[in-house]
């Protein structure tokens, strides 16, 4: 815990107080709940605990957004009121450790985990340095047993962790940052680029995001593994999804699992009498919250709602789709699977235009240009060629893991020469072709 706190203090010393305060609050409320027998009172304590834990997140991340929205609402009504704004930096990882703390509180209430009496264990859980900045959003049920059983990591942990980190670096530096050069060049000047270039940038953006957050998650999981901790995976080859629901079971798994357990399941259970409409409402609310979590902007909230709508439509049509697939025996048809993967990818890429744009007018301009303004492609030969090579490597690995997990092993090969060759190939790929001067990880802003 001390090491995690020192790590955090190096980055944002002042906000260490906030992290400690959230830890103390979480610890206090769980201990309080433990000493109460009355269910209603326990429930009230949990609700108050959630509210108190959410306060800093609201204050730092959403205050200005709500404040500006109210101001513009007043202005549109002709009332000239200016609300105070906060000019403080967003505490690193606040969205992650807040959700982890809430998850722990709810798990204690549901008696799914026992209350942890050691405040240092709670402190380590919420501040664990590999995951505190960008997740995955871990669960108390997975972490506390590992914290209690903590011992020196074994050699196998070191090698497994190092392999995960190596692939994470490749995804981040060779895939995400390389694609980022092209995407940034196009999106930073939407007005100047034609629809063809914007369409390519929009299509590449999900892969960049996958490389970025997926790569960073692997770095975090690998670093934790080196210390002997097994952290939940965050991505599972999302671009081999044949439906949106399947996609969301493979993309940012820790967040979606959190939202499913603490938002979707309780709502759909409460609305079970409404049958399909209960599920639809639960999906919309869940992904609305997902949008809000991703960013304090209307475009991002709209992106979240789009995912909710798509999943709702898919749920409503699920039976018809199943019948269709069975009638024509499509479930194992390679071409059908391929087309479904492409359709899911394109739909997700389209919604991401709203997720990544700073305003509706910018997003609408991109969409309008994609459909109306064809032209020659903005080319950066070096970037596109290198991106293509890196994408082939990435998709080869994901394809193999998805369909032939036991064949063409590289990092896990039994032959040491193959293993060493693949490690060295990736290391030199990173050194020679990685974008080593890039800025921050995109997801740090969450």
């Amino acid at each position, binding site marked *: 815990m001390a090491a995690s706190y020192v790590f955090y203090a190096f980055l944002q010393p002042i906000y260490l107080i906030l992290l400690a305060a959230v830890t103390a609050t979480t610890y206090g409320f769980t201990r309080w709940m433990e000493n109460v027998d009355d269910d209603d009172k326990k429930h009230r304590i949990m609700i108050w605990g959630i509210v108190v834990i959410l306060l800093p997140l609201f204050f730092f991340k959403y205050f200005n957004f709500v404040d500006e929205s109210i101001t513009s609402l007043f202005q549109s009504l002709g009332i000239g009121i200016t609300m105070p704004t906060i000019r403080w930096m967003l505490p690193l990882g606040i969205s992650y450790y807040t959700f982890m703390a809430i998850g722990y509180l709810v798990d204690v209430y549901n008696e799914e985990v026992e209350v942890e009496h050691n405040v240092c264990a709670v402190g380590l859980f919420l501040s664990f340095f590999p995951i505190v900045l960008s997740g995955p959003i871990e669960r108390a049920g997975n972490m506390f047993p590992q914290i209690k059983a903590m011992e020196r990591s074994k*050699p196998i942990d070191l090698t497994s962790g190092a392999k995960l980190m190596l692939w994470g670096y490749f995804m981040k530096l060779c895939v995400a940052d390389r694609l980022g050069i092209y995407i940034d060049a196009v999106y930073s000047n939407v007005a100047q680029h034609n629809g063809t270039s914007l369409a390519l940038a929009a299509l590449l953006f999900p892969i960049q995001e996958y490389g970025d957050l997926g790569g960073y998650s692997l770095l975090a999981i690998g670093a934790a593994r080196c210390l002997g901790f097994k952290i939940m995976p965050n991505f599972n080859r999302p671009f081999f999804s044949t439906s949106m629901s399947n996609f969301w079971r493979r993309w940012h798994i820790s967040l979606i699992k959190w939202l499913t357990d603490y938002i979707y399941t309780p709502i759909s259970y409460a609305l079970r009498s409404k049958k399909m409409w209960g599920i639809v409402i639960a999906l919309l609310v869940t992904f609305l919250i997902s949008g809000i979590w991703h960013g304090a902007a209307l475009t991002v909230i709209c992106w979240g709602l789009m995912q909710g709508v798509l999943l709702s439509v898919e749920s409503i049509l699920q039976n018809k789709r199943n019948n269709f697939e069975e009638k024509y025996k499509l479930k194992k048809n390679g071409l059908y699977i391929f087309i479904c993967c492409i359709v899911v990818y394109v739909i997700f890429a389209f919604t991401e235009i709203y997720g990544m744009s700073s305003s509706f007018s910018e997003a609408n301009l991109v969409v309008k240009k994609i459909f109306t303004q064809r032209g020659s492609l903005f080319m950066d030969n*070096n970037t596109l*060629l290198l991106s293509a090579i890196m994408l082939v490597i990435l998709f080869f690995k994901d394809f193999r893991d998805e369909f032939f997990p036991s064949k063409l092993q590289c990092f896990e090969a039994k032959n040491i020469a193959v293993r060493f060759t693949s490690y*060295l190939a990736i290391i*030199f790929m990173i*050194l020679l*072709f990685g*974008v080593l*001067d890039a800025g921050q990880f995109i997801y740090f802003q969450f």
Partner: protein
Amino acid sequence: MFMKKLLFKLMVFIALFVFIDYGIGMVFTHFCDKAINLPIDYGTAYLKVVKQIDDDIVIFGESRARHQYVPSLIEDALGLSTINVAMDGSYMSQQAAVIRLMLNRHIPKVIIWEVDAVSIMDKFRNDEIDRMSDLNPFYDIDSLSHNLVLQKGDYEWIKMWSRAYRNNNCLLRMIRVLSKGDYNDTLKGYWPVKTKGYKYPTKRDRIFEDDLNNEKLQLLKMTIADIQKSDCILIIVNSPQYENCNLETTFQGLAFDSLLDEMNVAHLNHHFDSRLLEDSTLFKDCSHLNAKGVEIYMGFLIPEIKQFLENEN
């Protein structure tokens, strides 16, 4: 036991890494030796400046110099061999390091340097530091380049042990240069901008805040002093930009002008030249002239340079 085995494997792995890394370094050295005899291009310009060129007039700067100064026109007018070694996106610190390295080997008669007060601002420091990797080839041979490269980060000195890291993102660039072969480089480093496929710009407004980086000011001062000490004539030029801006009246703008005055450096400032500023069809974008604009600009800049050199003599 398992730990010992792991350590042994790790040692073998490190040995292999060092061996391959060294091999990669040798391959790049071989590529560089071949590429240096080819015309100026991305990735080879600075190598050529430091190791090969022997022209009378050398033009330094970033994209505004690369796309706006035509060596053949200068050669015809002045009768002195001229080369344009400016690179897109290059910063003053890099240019200063390369100028210093060149002066150790070759002293041209004239250096024309497109540099302005933006180069001594702190605002673009992070971008500038990122671009220091262009100086990697000189890391071991020059203390200024060495120190500038190390500004990239606290652990840069460790990373620089790797030859592969030093040549990060160079391979394709180098292959491109080599694949072009020894074409006839009549433009001598000048790269005309595309004349089709862009809209003429609308005049921009740029407001700079007072922002002076003293370290960069000192580096500029030191470089000017080095050039003057070597008996080379330095002419600082500023080409027209299609904008309204307050750069010259900012703290850094005043410091820049006062430095040039103090060191008695010729400054041909055409930033707001009315001969070009009223016509957007002469610009590719607000920072760069197009080919038509360059023709007009060269038309009055070259006589000014000629006049200045005659006065000097």
